[in-house]
């Protein structure tokens, strides 16, 4: 499996964010997207996720499931964590697991893996920022998708959480997954760096 982009150009709000961007990542690899604020890291992830369309160029996944689009084989972990404060931790997770579908796992186990099993029945409104992030990570574990698109995944995580997350990423890569992560800090795992130039 190989994710690649050729000559990708992104225009948002009439302003060119980046152009002529080439990148590639194979199964078992992490592509760390770095760059200054506003350089287009999030835009790149949203382009790969199919939430934006490139003004020029193509993004393709080779060797995935031929019947599914790239977006349908990807997990997107954005700034906003897609959690409903009125629902409990477990209800939030079970909803996303059932809605996203495909190859799914026990919600309880996923919560345990991110260290949130003690809070399973707490409404999500009472979670701290770090706990919300952990709950979002549990979604990646409850449903298997080969491509993970992570936007600042370690933001708000404590040291133990970052270590745990590095382990989860290693497991995912070991199963033949690939990861594209926009980040400022170290991910705690060997990664190929893709630097997006300053905005022009």
């Amino acid at each position, binding site marked *: 499996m190989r994710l690649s982009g050729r000559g990708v150009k992104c225009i948002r709000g009439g302003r060119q964010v980046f152009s002529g961007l080439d990148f590639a990542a194979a199964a078992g690899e992490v592509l760390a997207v770095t760059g200054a604020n506003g350089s287009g890291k999030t835009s790149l992830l949203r382009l790969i996720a199919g939430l*934006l369309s490139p003004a020029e160029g193509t993004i393709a996944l080779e060797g995935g499931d031929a019947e599914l689009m790239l977006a349908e084989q990807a997990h997107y972990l954005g700034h906003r964590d*897609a959690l409903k404060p009125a*629902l409990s931790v477990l209800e939030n997770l079970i*909803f996303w697991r059932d809605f996203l579908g495909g190859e799914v796992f026990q919600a309880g186990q996923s919560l345990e893996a991110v260290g949130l099993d003690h809070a399973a029945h707490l409404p999500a409104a009472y979670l701290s920022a770090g706990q919300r992030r952990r709950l979002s990570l549990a979604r990646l574990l409850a449903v298997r998708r080969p491509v993970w698109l992570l936007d600042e995944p370690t933001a708000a995580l404590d040291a133990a959480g970052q270590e745990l997350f590095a382990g989860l990423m290693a497991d995912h890569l070991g199963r033949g997954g690939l990861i594209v992560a926009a980040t400022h800090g170290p991910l705690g795992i060997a990664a190929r760096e893709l630097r997006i130039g300053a905005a022009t």
Partner: protein
Amino acid sequence: MTALAALIRRDIRIALRVGGGALIGVLFFLSVVVLMPFAVGPDLKLLARLGPAILWLGALLASLLTLDRLFTADHEDGSLDLIVMSRTPLELACAAKALAHWIAAGLPLIVATPVLGLLLNLDAPATSAVALTLLAGTPALTFTGMIGAALAVTLHRGGLLLAVLVLPLSIPVLIFGVAASEAAITGPQTFGAPFAILCALSLFSFVIGPFAAAASLRQGMD
């Protein structure tokens, strides 16, 4: 199917919990209809004549009031991104969301109608006629309103825009809903013809609504 059932279950659950929209719509409906007899005065004949129109207006405004959160809430917390990316076609997801909204916010209005009918001096057959037209017509309000909600999704305080966009589409529903109820109460026209058109409007909106809403959501993703 599990995906759509999960979406419907989640939306209903959120609507029924504290801070959800379901109760707001019913309370608004209640206050509009309860205030009306005080504003119109104690003329029982006049109240009975205006009754169906008042109930319909209340239901229309109540459904508009809660519709603007249909997609905005999911957009603000990022859920909409994941729904767009998922393997479920966006049209079906929109239809599921509208159905959940109708069950949580539309059905309670119909359940409240018999009680409110008493305040408007409507007898039992008249009240059941109004309830029946609301049952047939409010889905059309939800499914056409969904188009406006999808267009206004990226705007903060899109509620007013939603009202402006959706009201023209709801006028036919209002006309035939009130016409059918009045035909059943006072005659002389038959109940069947306007009621059939009302049902047709609902069926029409089931088809158009999800496609139009999904198209405008895709346009709005940026």
